[in-house]
């Protein structure tokens, strides 16, 4: 698949389209269909195709970016997302509505991504790379990563964080989720999440302080 460009290049129309994690926010706001309606199509009415399309329209990008930030590389994110969505559609009848639909989806996506990372970590045990340098290498190798120096520094700093702190930081900072939602997703108290987030911020600060280029 040929990579496409985004942002200012996108509006000029000179270069082929490539979508970034932020450009999704630039789209004109669409009337979002309610989760109840999606579930009705998938669970009750028997019009699963419509339900499938609606769920994909609403959540595929959010889930993709959530996974992508965790696993870094696009190809990995694609594999994890597909596995996640297959699980979602094969088990949607079992969803009882005890939690919100997006909470359930994010939980599956997070579990899939973390399982994937742990498998990868296991595979790399014999090599000299630890997880941190492995993720950093992935960042360098990813042809779909094109951040400026500051973005690179931030992503590198993120790879130094423990898994849980990275996840909390990502959900709060990039995905702008309220603590209560994160608490529902990760089944962790709001207090513990705040502590994790603050630790993460301090560690990132310490890391980027050493980099002169950050936000220059």
């Amino acid at each position, binding site marked *: *698949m*040929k*990579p*496409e*460009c*985004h*942002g200012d290049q996108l509006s000029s129309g000179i270069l*082929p*389209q*490539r*979508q*970034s*994690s*932020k450009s999704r926010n630039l789209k004109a706001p669409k009337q979002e269909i309610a989760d109840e309606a999606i579930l009705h199509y998938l669970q009750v009415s028997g019009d699963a195709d419509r339900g*499938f*399309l609606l769920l*994909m329209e609403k959540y*595929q*990008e959010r889930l*993709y*970016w959530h996974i*992508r*930030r965790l696993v870094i590389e*696009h190809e990995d994110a*694609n594999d994890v*997302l*597909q596995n996640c*969505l*297959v699980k979602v*559609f*094969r088990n949607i009848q079992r969803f009882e509505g005890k939690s919100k639909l997006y909470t359930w989806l994010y939980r599956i996506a997070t579990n899939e991504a973390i399982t994937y990372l742990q498998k990868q970590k296991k595979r790399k045990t014999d090599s000299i790379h630890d997880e941190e340098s492995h993720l950093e290498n992935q960042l360098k190798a990813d042809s*779909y*990563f*094109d*951040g*400026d120096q*500051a*973005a*690179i520094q*931030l*992503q590198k700093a993120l790879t130094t964080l423990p898994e849980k702190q990275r996840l909390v930081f990502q959900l*709060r*900072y*990039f995905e*702008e*989720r*309220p603590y209560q939602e994160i608490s529902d997703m990760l089944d962790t108290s709001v207090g513990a999440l705040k502590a994790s987030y*603050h630790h993460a*911020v*301090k560690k*990132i*600060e310490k890391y*980027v*302080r050493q980099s002169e280029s*950050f*936000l220059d």
Partner: protein
Amino acid sequence: MEKEKDRIIKELEGLNSSLAKWKQSGKEEGFQVPGGYFAQLQKDLKAKLEEPAPAEKPRTKLIPLRSRRLLSVAASVLVLLVAGTFWWQMSSPSAMADPSNIELADYVQANLDDFELELLTKYVVADEETNLDFLPVEDPLEKEEMDQLIDDLMEEMDWSELEELL
């Protein structure tokens, strides 16, 4: 969501973080996705879902090593408990096997007529010899009291009764 973003920036400013500036600047994260990826994803996924779901392998119930150790410890404790209880029951006389002296005394009193005099005598002699506290013994009478008791009895009894007794 905009409100949440403001809260996040405020929170970061409180932490004196350059991340607050970064967030405010709205800079790109740097991640990109191939053009048309999401449209293709829907097609790929649809095809994947139309394939029959792989039959679930019959799961062999595996007990993790940690649980096995726990189970073996629990089993050992259980065996020890059962053996201990059994030993305790065997070695300690039960309540049935060890009636109290008072119960025995009551039984003898209630069934006194069933015992032969010879057997009772033997028993009392044996009791005195072994100095067992078998029957509740009242305080022995003083000599004067005893003499008085005998005198009273003599007065109450006929000569014929005394003869018979001697």
